[in-house]
């Protein structure tokens, strides 16, 4: 059988996919708080930029932590600066590789979704991780969330000099 073709999520996904975040009266099946604060919660936040450097206010991110079986979803249309925010725990290492979160990115203007990963700047395993080493050094940093005082910052650039590495999986 042939695959069903992908189509864009469009600009109006919020009341179907992230209803509670956008204050629609429909239950959300997933949100951005994957673990409670007492579970060594970390915050990952950032923004998504288009090819002219404009912040994208209608993207939706999903994150998947296979190690801990955690899934989250958040749209960039509700925070003041159009950032996404996830409260989760640091994923552990799998098979000695550096810990990361898998990211699925959707937005108007993407006929098919994009895959990327969030690694963490304070992990020594980054220097030996086979996936990171597979990527040319100048682009590797686009996959690494930078540890700030209270959160990890991870910005996604769809295009340009800092274009984020996207994966084919």
């Amino acid at each position, binding site marked *: *059988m*042939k*695959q*069903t*073709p*992908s*189509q*864009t*999520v469009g*600009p*109006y*996904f*919020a*009341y*179907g*996919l992230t*209803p509670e975040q956008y204050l*629609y*009266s*429909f239950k959300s*099946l*997933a949100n951005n708080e994957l673990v409670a604060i007492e579970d060594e919660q970390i915050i990952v936040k950032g923004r998504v930029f*288009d*090819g*002219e450097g404009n912040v*994208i206010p209608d993207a939706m991110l*999903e994150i*998947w932590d*296979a*190690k801990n*079986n955690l*899934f989250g979803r958040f749209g960039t249309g509700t925070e003041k600066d159009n950032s996404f925010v996830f409260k989760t725990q640091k994923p552990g290492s*799998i*098979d000695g590789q550096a810990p*990361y979160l*898998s990211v*699925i990115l*959707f*937005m*108007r*203007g*993407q*006929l*098919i*979704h*994009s*895959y990327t990963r969030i690694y963490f700047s304070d992990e020594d395993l980054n220097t030996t991780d086979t*996936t990171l080493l*597979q*990527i040319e050094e100048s*682009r590797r940093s686009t996959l690494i969330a930078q540890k700030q005082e209270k959160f990890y910052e991870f910005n996604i650039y*769809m*295009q340009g000099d800092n*274009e*984020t*590495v*996207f*994966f*084919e*999986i």
Partner: protein
Amino acid sequence: MSNLIYNLFDEEVQPPRLYPDYKSTVLRAPTKPLVLLKQSLSELSGPVFGDFELGTLDHDLTRNSIVNGEPLGERIVVHGTVFNENGQPIPNTLIEIWQANSCGRYVHKVDQHDAPLDPNFLGAGRCMTDANGNYKFYTIKPGAYPWGNHYNAWRPNHIHFSLFGANITNRLVTQMYFPGDPLLQHDPIFLGVPPKGRDLLISKFDLDATEESFALGYRFDFVLRGNNATPFEKI
């Protein structure tokens, strides 16, 4: 499971990242080649949702937002099967649904199209496939609506879907169209799909699924990415 390798997106039917006729792809499509990733536990797993998480009327968009009467428009029942490319049905997988109302207006606050909202219609729902991969839901046929892509641009009638499948390689967000819609040949989102894939996005009118004096039936099957398992292998 550890020996399974999932097929990549099939370029014969999947849309490209950049499709300039759909103008917002120009600044949002990645320009550098994608990096091929060896499939690992992360790619071969994904979130699992259960029946119990769904509301009792989530599968019926004609009733899940009633305030003071029935929603306006043509009632339809949409059903089909979720398969993978190997032809295996995918049981117990979540299908999320959202759409415009019968006038072509979305509830979303950003939608400024000058067509009426329906107080009794939200346009959001979800259902799960059963043990045989089949699904069914009720809704109102969505209307066409204008958008700003080019002069006199109108989206054909469509329903948005989000599916999870077996793992994150199976993730699918798509749109279902209706047979005979004259707007399809003018819609750059639909035409972004290569010719071989376009018919796969058009539902079929289904008289057998049509419910007497109640709702017109449409059939729409989904096919998620398959894997290298042979048909004889037990998964």
